[in-house]
């Protein structure tokens, strides 16, 4: 099977106002397969957002290549295919909503790619239904809660019928309830609509829901594997300046204290089951 996103020896160097060069990505190699749910973790400034922005051609590689469905993102003719198939949802829900009526905003993407007038409304309705926001179609976005706004942002991306959605810390600005809603929607999109998910997060409780976790440090991929494989190495996670999920931390502390516990305990249930044995 062809990977939906393939990154080869990707390096990205920013030049800031004072002409300083910042190497944000350093020789990255990565392939993401259709239907996968990949989480990317890493401390601030490790290059997660920079990597994600190559996936839909918002940034171009300084060196190396990035392919979407086998098409090079550096070729101008491919950009619209890439942007339509790889959607992006950002951290601040306020700053990605364009129109003053919810349904108008969801229609923005399809309008941009010239979908005929008659096909736009069905797309908008379907997109709003998948994020449970149908009843808010005529509302003004600024009156919605953060979680609801983020759901509108997701609907706006869904209306383009993407194969993959990249989420860049979508829950960072939300309250616990909004966060739960978004996580649930993301899981549904992956499980039911088979949309490939790339999910950048600082919340390890969210990262363990993925099929694969990628940890970054200083522009490099330093750990990669299933959530159990990655978070089982609690020491290494700490060295990266990150924290493992609470259950993995507790299990590690118990192991240090001499208890025999498996290394793949990462969820509360797994910890509870192990402790009851």
């Amino acid at each position, binding site marked *: 099977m062809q990977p939906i996103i393939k990154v080869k020896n990707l390096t990205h160097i920013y030049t800031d106002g004072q002409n300083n060069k910042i190497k944000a990505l350093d020789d990255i190699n990565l392939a993401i397969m259709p239907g996968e749910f990949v989480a990317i973790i890493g401390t601030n400034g490790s290059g997660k957002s920079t990597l994600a922005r190559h996936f*839909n051609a*918002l940034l171009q590689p300084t060196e190396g290549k990035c392919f979407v469905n086998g098409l090079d993102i550096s070729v101008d003719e491919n950009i*619209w295919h890439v*942007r*339509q198939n790889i*959607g*992006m949802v*950002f951290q*601040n829900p*306020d*700053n*990605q*909503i*364009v*129109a*003053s*009526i919810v*349904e*108008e905003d969801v*229609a*923005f*993407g*399809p*309008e*941009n*790619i*010239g*979908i*005929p*007038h008659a096909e*736009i*409304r069905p797309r*908008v309705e379907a997109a709003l239904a998948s994020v449970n926001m149908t009843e808010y179609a*005529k*509302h*003004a*976005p*600024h*009156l919605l809660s953060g979680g609801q706004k983020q759901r509108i*942002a997701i609907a*706006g*991306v869904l209306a*383009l019928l993407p194969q993959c959605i990249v989420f860049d810390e979508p829950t960072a600005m939300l309250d616990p309830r909004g966060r739960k809603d978004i996580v649930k929607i993301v899981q549904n999109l992956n499980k039911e609509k088979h949309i490939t998910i790339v999910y950048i997060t600082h919340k390890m409780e969210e990262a363990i829901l993925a099929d694969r976790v990628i940890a970054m440090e200083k522009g490099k991929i330093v750990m990669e594997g299933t959530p159990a494989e990655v978070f089982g190495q609690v020491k290494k996670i700490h060295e990266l300046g990150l924290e493992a999920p609470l259950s993995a931390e507790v299990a590690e502390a118990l192991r240090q204290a001499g208890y025999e516990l498996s290394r793949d305990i990462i969820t509360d249930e797994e910890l509870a089951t192990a402790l009851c044995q």
Partner: protein
Amino acid sequence: MLADITLGQYYPGTSFVHKLDPRTKILATMSFIIAVFLAVSATSYAVLVAFVLSVIFLARLPVLLVVKSIKPLWIIIVLTMGIHLLTGQGEVIWSWKFISVTKEGLSMGVMMSLRLVLLLMISSILTFTTSPIVLTDGIEYLLKPFKRVGVPAHELAMMMTIALRFIPTLLEETDRIMKAQMARGAEFKGGNIIARAKGMLPILIPLFISAFRRADELAVAMESRCYHGGEGRTSMHELVYRHRDLLAALAMVVLIVIIGVLKWSNGLCVI
């Protein structure tokens, strides 16, 4: 349509006027403005007032709502009236000490302020009966022919859309910044103009910084959703002229003809 009420001054409804195509309404408003400038006699003003009242009635708008729309400019209206009253030449009908009011001054004053009132009322009827989004669509469409001479029709419409979206957000933010600065002991009331202007700086600077950050993020988000200007763009709303638009256009033609006949048959021409 509850949410619409908070945006601009749209007054939702399903009347004949509400259902007209936005382009018809914009063009009709423009022709009414022309009619107002053609009107010279008391009769023609009576026709215009009757026209506005029947539009209000057709749109099922509360008369008071439309009358209130002249509030922002009432000082100018009163001033216009006053200046014409006091400076008019001709037959004196009332005088006190050095002040005298002439018949011509009175009629000019009434006409001029009535002109302003009519202009304000007709343009607010347009915004009361058309949702801002639809209005934007209409403006974009009507400006399209002027693209060739360099009018950025799509860009103007996009600017309006974004302004409508972000004005409430920025207002909320202003409020929040003001409260935060007040909690730190900032004073926004009292003092002379300079002191007050200085007092605004702690609000304006964070507001500008945040607005620029928002603009930056919004631009990236728009691009990631395939935005690339107006080229090849479609719209969810299709603008179509219907029978009622023809009716409205006829009504406007009739109005202009009446006003025109009243003007040139009198032979008397003011302005």
